Structure formats: structure tokens, C-alpha cells
């Protein structure tokens, strides 16, 4: 398994010359977790960045892994392409601990990846990023005619829908006939 370490550096911060009043308690070191997608490339991400994902946050909230345990057990997301997971991790890192702005300029620019990104973000339950992605999808049809929208959103025509429905019925009929034949064969 290849491994790339991404995200926030785990190096200790420099000692402040004068301790601020509120810094009486020792700082808790940031914990890191590891995730990988379909390509098995492991990404190191801080717990702070992962808080954006309700799914992962729920998974790690009660784990209490040590750094070593977390490294040994990366979260596998086999349904997400490696480059898409990379985009998501980058976005989570960029927005770690920050309030998310109403308009996000850090959104991944590759429109051809938008569909896979939307599915991944929805699966990982990253609400703000999902909203940004959905805004991009909504913006695609601004000022467009029904014909243009049909192409942009890949909407089948009524004729195509009817043909697909007929085909599905035909297939279902064949499957039902096959099952009946198999059941009759079993009975013999």
C-alpha cells in the first residue's frame, strides 16, 4: 500500500515567548486519522479537518485511537475514487476550524469530476461542501432553455423514458418466466 501524508503538519508549534493568560492548561496535541479511497492511497487528516464529515466524525468520536492505532487502521472508502477523496481531504483541510463562507472559491474546479464529488460528499455527509457543489449544479442551467437543460443534466426525452420502461418491463417479464421455469424444473 502506498502512502502519502497530507494535511496539517504534526510538528510541535514553537514555544511562545510569553505565555498568554488563557494558555495555563497544556495544549492537547491534535490527533490525526488516516483515510483511503479506491486507489488505496492513504491520506493523513487531522480530527479537526474531519469534523466537516458527519460520517467520519461519528466513526472516530468514540474510538480513542493512538496515532499508531489510527495509522494501522485507515478508514477505507472503497466507493470513492482516489482523486475525489484527495479533493475532499484538501477542502476539509482548507476549511479546518473556519466558518464556511457563503461563496466558496476553494471548490474543486474540475467540472467533469463534479458528479463523483457530489456522490462522495453526500456519502461522507459534508453538508457545507454538498451545498457548494449543489450550487454549482444549479448554476449550470441559469438562463438555459429546456433543450439545453436536457443536455446539461442528461435528462432522457419522453421517448427515451418510454423505451427504457418497455425494456425494463420486457426484462422483468423474462426474469419472471425464467424463475417460473427454474421452479418447475426443481419440482420435477
Amino acid at each position, binding site marked *: 500500500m502506498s502512502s502519502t501524508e497530507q494535511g496539517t503538519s504534526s510538528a510541535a508549534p514553537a514555544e511562545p515567548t510569553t505565555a498568554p493568560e488563557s494558555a495555563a492548561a497544556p495544549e492537547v496535541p491534535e490527533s490525526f486519522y488516516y483515510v483511503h479511497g479506491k486507489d488505496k492511497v492513504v491520506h493523513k487528516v487531522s480530527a479537526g479537518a474531519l469534523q466537516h464529515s458527519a460520517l467520519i466524525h461519528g466513526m472516530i468520536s468514540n474510538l480513542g485511537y493512538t496515532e499508531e492505532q489510527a495509522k494501522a487502521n485507515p478508514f477505507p472508502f472503497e466507493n470513492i475514487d482516489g482523486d475525489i477523496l484527495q479533493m475532499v481531504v484538501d477542502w476539509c483541510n482548507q476549511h479546518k476550524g473556519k466558518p464556511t463562507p457563503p461563496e466558496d472559491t476553494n471548490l474543486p474546479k474540475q467540472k467533469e469530476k463534479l*458528479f463523483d464529488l457530489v456522490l462522495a460528499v453526500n456519502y461522507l455527509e459534508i453538508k457545507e461542501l454538498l451545498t457548494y457543489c449543489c450550487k454549482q449544479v444549479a448554476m449550470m442551467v441559469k438562463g438555459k432553455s*429546456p433543450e439545453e*437543460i*436536457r443536455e446539461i443534466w442528461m435528462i*432522457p426525452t419522453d421517448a427515451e423514458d418510454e423505451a427504457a420502461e418497455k425494456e425494463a418491463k420486457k426484462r422483468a417479464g423474462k426474469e419472471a418466466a425464467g424463475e417460473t421455469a427454474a421452479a418447475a424444473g426443481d419440482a420435477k
Partner: protein
Amino acid sequence: MPFPILRTPSVVLSEIISLLQPNEIVTASFCSKNLERLLQNHFRQRKPLKWRLHMIDYKSCGQAHIKTSEDAKQIPVLLAKHMSELKRQLSWKCPVLYSNDQILGTKMTVEYVTDLFGLDIHELLTDRNSAWAIQWVNNRQKNSLYNFAFNKTRKCNSDADEALDFVLRNARASNYCSIEGSVSDNFKFDGKLGPMRKLTIPSNGHWVTGDNLSNFDAIEITIQGSRLSVSDLNVFLRHWRAGGLTRLEWLHLNFEEHTFRERFDEDLEVVKTDERRVYHCSYGYKKVVHGGYSVQRVDGVKALIQCDLRRFVMVVWHQQ
């Protein structure tokens, strides 16, 4: 780059739909019957409670507009035009239905939008050619219109008297009613209007008699071009003092001729006053009234009257 929207999970699809403007949703609904059904179901499950549908049938153009909130601008979502307009090749920000039957086209347009979003018609704006729209709206929905406006047209007003009579007898709106018709000097109306919050006659108010005024059930009444005389208003004030027009708070008449003279009958007990008060009228406006005449109803409710050659204003103070 295409985006296969119908392959997204339903939660994503709902999020995308919620980010679209009403005109974009209507346009998208024409992509396929399947998408139209999907959008209809979306709005059945998530009724856009703040959206308001405005139907306009004015100058031979049927229009369905949506306002997404009280402060938002009206967005045209679907238009109906006559086939003869097709040559003009104007570009619209929403789909246009061209037909040979303008009324049928307008009905289809508005029905399409009401079915898609599950909305009643909230406001109707018509001219004298679309009296049909009033009855059509009255018959198709249980809830009465919130706002109604009848605008005059400049051309072909030969049947203006008939048209306005029809409107006055049939139009109903709970909040605001604006009625403007190029009627003849002989036009008379013997019915009632209201109840509503605000009645405005923005021009040609010469037909309004004292009896009419006493039969208007509205909180605020504004009439431009009035021919009411001081004796008409004395009769009206007598009716008001005896308990008529109990809901009236604001009456503003602008006279056609600037010759009005205040000569109130003695029995009305109208007295001069230097009182200063603030009236909070509809849509958040404030009007300061200072001085004029004071008149009191038998139940103790007071009103302040200000008048000159051009106007007569009466403000009723229901709360002491």
C-alpha cells in the same frame, strides 16, 4: 460537462432543486414528463410556503409570476402570448406558450404553474379584457385572492362601464383591491365592496357616490378623481357617526375639481382641533396628521378630518 442529475441520491436532488429559482424550475420541468412529475412530487412534499403566485392577464399577455418571499421581486416563470406575437422574436427569461386562443393559453399557463408548485393564485392583475379571469379564479380555488388589481387600458373603452360593473360585482380580495376603469360619466354602481384591508381607486373615481362610500367595507380607502360634494360627505359622516363603516381607519379623497369647501352640518358636531397624531398605515408607512377638525361617533370613537380645495382626509382613532 454534463451532470446526470437523475442519478444523484434523492437528498442531493432535493438540495439542487431548492437552490433553483422558480423560473428555472418551470423551464426544467419542460425537459420531460418524468422530470415534471419528479418536481411536482418534490413540491408536494416540501410545499414552498413563502412563495406567492401572481397571475397577470394584461394587454393581451398572460403571465404567471412567483414571489419567493415578501421582499423579493416577482419572477416571471411562464408566459402565454398570441400566435401572432411569435414573429416578434423577443427573448424572454422564461418559456412562452404561443396559441391562437389567448384565454385558453393563459389558463393553461397558470394551471401548469399551480399544479407544479401546488400553489393557489395569490394575486390577480387584469384589464378590461380579462374579466373572465376573475370568475375563473373564483371557481378554481377555495381561498379568495389576497390582492386584486384591475387596470384601465387606453384603447377601445366602449365597454368600460360593463367591464367595471362586472369587476365590482365579482372581484374579491382579502387584502388589497385596486380598481381603475375609464368609465363614462353616467356609470353607476349600486352594490357593495369588501371586506378587504385596503381599497384604492387610483384614477377616474368620479363614479363613487356617497352611498357607494358607505357600502365600502375596508380599513383604508383612497379615491382619486372624486366628485363627492360636501353635502355627500355630510351624509357619509352622519352614517359613520351612527355606527357605519366600523372598520374604517383611513379615508383619502382627491377631488377632480379643486373646489371643495368644508361646510359641515351642525348636527355632526365637527369642531376645529390642533391635535397631532401619527397613523400607521398598511405596508409600514407612517402618516403624521396635525390639526383640522375633530368628529366623534356615538360610541365615542374619534376621527380627525383634514381638508382643503383638493382633498378630504379622515383618520379614525380606534384606540384611544
